[in-house]
């Protein structure tokens, strides 16, 4: 009974915060400059209870090899216990964990892109565990809302 209530409440929260449609690729543009958008992203991630496990500086590697590029980073994000649980139970997910958000400059604006966490739900068959990805989806929409609404 308690589990059922939990599931229903999770679905309610998900429906309230996620738009009625779902794309497999989530993108957001902000008028913040790259450094400010990066700060907003990391702050919002932490406020939503997630950890930034690493920031990969793609542009540094490219320019180091002589290629011209604008600012480009990959942010790895997750909750330790959830990542541990998923990778242990579903090895098929290991290659995708922790999830990544790419953030790159486009002139004076910044674009962020990530895969909709719901795509991971297609890789497992446990309906209860799939709800976890629904929550991740809801959270990433909320993080992207923070970024979209952030002012310099």
């Amino acid at each position, binding site marked *: 009974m308690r589990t059922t209530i939990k599931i229903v409440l999770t679905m309610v929260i998900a429906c309230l915060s996620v*738009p009625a449609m779902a794309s497999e*690729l989530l993108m957001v543009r902000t*008028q913040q400059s790259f450094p400010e958008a990066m700060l907003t992203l990391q702050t919002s991630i932490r406020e939503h209870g997630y950890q930034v496990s690493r920031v990969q500086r*793609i542009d540094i590697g490219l320019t180091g090899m002589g290629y011209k590029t604008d600012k*480009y980073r*990959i942010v790895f994000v*997750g909750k330790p216990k959830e990542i541990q649980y998923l990778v*242990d139970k579903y*090895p098929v997910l290991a290659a995708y964990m922790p999830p990544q958000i790419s953030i790159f400059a486009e002139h004076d*604006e910044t674009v962020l892109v990530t895969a909709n966490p719901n795509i991971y739900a297609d890789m497992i068959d446990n309906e209860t565990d799939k709800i976890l990805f629904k929550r991740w989806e809801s959270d990433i929409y909320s993080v992207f809302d923070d970024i979209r609404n952030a002012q310099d």
Partner: protein
Amino acid sequence: MKNLLIVFVLLFSLSAYGAPHGDKLYATHCSACHGIDGKGGVGVPIALPSFLNSVSNEYLKKTIRLGRPGRIMPAFDVLSNAQVSAIVEHVRSWTDKPAPPESSASVKGDSEHGKQLFAKYCVQCHGENGSGGKGTGVTFSRKRDLPIIAPALNNTGFLAAASDVMIRDTIAFGREGTPMTSMLVAGLSENDIDDVVAYVRSLEKSAAELKQNLNQNDEEPPTIVVDSPYDLEETVENLKQAIIDQNFTLIRTDYLEHGLVEEGKENKKQVVLHFCNFGFLFEALAIDPRVGMFLPCRVTVIEKDGKVQLSAVNPKRLSRLFNNHELDAPCDEMYEVYSSLLEDATL
């Protein structure tokens, strides 16, 4: 319990079917590509007056609904009619002119003659068979002096959205502010233009075939997985050697839980190798800057219950996320690289 379910149903209804706000829907679903004010970015500048004043609301609605298969613009097929209309209304607010009426009149012409004219006047921008200009957005690949990439005409989404009259008028009068010039000014007669319209319309069959090809990767598994006959340590060493042998730069080796748990407390049986071929990376980002979210390349090696397994994302499966057919070839290439690496490490 019953009450909870009722609350859930009510909230769901409100969430999905409440009065839509075009500005908010646009900000959520369109602005990342088309820019906050519609002036473009990854996507085309839809706020351009010469564009908005020459396309009907029906064209915009169908474009949102159907997207452009293989050309970045996704199909927003789960938006409600009211939501699509609200987005169109918001976009329409960028011009003070009324939307042109939709015309269902068909334009008759000689498609063979149209093909010859297309080869002479249009192919330079729109490509062979109307396949469209190359590149995505302004970030890396598009020349910054070009405000727009020539659209693919052999695209099911375009052909379903655009009426014959709209195609004819665009050819005849061009689009101010884009490289699309008036073909009447260029010297084509009205009959010539009708012939080009007939040729563009004749692309429907090849467009359908192209769309069919795009869906082939949907059945691909999400990951490439190989069992290793070696222990974890030996498998990791084999993989490192295979990465170097294939001219990739090994960026780092760390644990999957790196940065998530206190240093030293990571699960040592879950190792990730990050590697890159910067030339390939640059080319991939030039095609589509969004692919970075699955880069740099990585292979995960996990030992569980005495069994060692290597896994990597399946680039063929991922290519569908981007709806960019230009990524098909590099994704196929990366699939071969991953497969080869995993095979070499476990021989």
